């Protein structure tokens, strides 16, 4: 229920921001659309802590900041390698995943893909196959460069914050 309310508020905010009109008629249409969307989402059974992790809100904020910095550095590195100032040494590695929940695993794999210079390509028995463009980048992944910044996901802990 908590997730449904939070998702509804988020969808309604999206409606208002995208339309930019505040007439009662249009806001009414907005409310109807939000209720219809929530009904579909409930029927599809996708409103839960996985699709809508409100228990992680504050941790996610810090996570995005650190990840943004890493993405910036990786961009410069890959740019230099494309232009030929550094060597391109592709590596194929597999990483052990310590994350226990599906959400944690998905965040780990997607963070690796989002960082240029490393892309996750396959997941098998708790191991993640990763292709990196440089040996240094592969070593950084082995040292837990990205694994350390993934928020620890305990589904039982509920801080109750809004996303």
């Amino acid at each position, binding site marked *: 229920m908590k997730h449904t309310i939070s998702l509804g508020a988020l969808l309604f905010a*999206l409606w208002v*921001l*995208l339309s*930019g009109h505040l007439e009662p008629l249009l806001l009414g249409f907005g409310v109807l659309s939000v209720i219809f969307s929530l009904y579909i989402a409930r029927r599809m059974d996708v409103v839960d802590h996985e699709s809508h992790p409100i228990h992680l809100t504050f941790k996610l904020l810090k996570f995005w900041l650190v990840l943004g910095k890493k*993405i*910036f550095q990786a*961009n410069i590195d*890959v*740019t230099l390698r*494309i*232009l*030929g100032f550094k060597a*391109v*040494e*592709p*590596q*194929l*590695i*597999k*990483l*052990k995943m310590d994350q226990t929940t599906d959400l944690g695993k998905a965040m780990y*794999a*997607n*963070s690796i*893909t*989002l*960082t*240029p*210079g*490393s*892309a*996750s*390509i*396959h*997941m098998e028995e708790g*191991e993640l*196959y*990763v*292709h990196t*463009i440089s*040996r240094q980048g*592969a*070593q950084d992944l*082995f040292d837990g460069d990205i694994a350390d910044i993934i928020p620890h996901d305990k589904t039982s802990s509920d801080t109750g914050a809004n996303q």
Partner: protein
Amino acid sequence: MITDILTGVFVSLGCTLGLIGGLGMHRLDDFYARLHAVGVTDTLCSFFILFGLALQTGLSFVTIKLLLIFLFLLFTSPAASFSLANNAWQWGLRPKGTNSEPVSSFNKDAS
């Protein structure tokens, strides 16, 4: 005036990164390496261009739309990249110039 200069700097930086990514599509010689070139254009390039445009308007509905465009690009690009790479892997495409099987640490191999 100062925002115009800042917009110019950010948009030019973004376009340069985009051109480098496009160049990388041709300089890198294998599908998995090209994923990284696309990664550059999906993250920092779009951020610079959209941020430069957002500076032009100040805080308004337009800025929020630009932010939403950036967020959609940011959230969908890793999903698209991963499903593409995973498809290629399961189809049997293997990267060039690496070990044929993934290694779990660098201690064992000599190179």
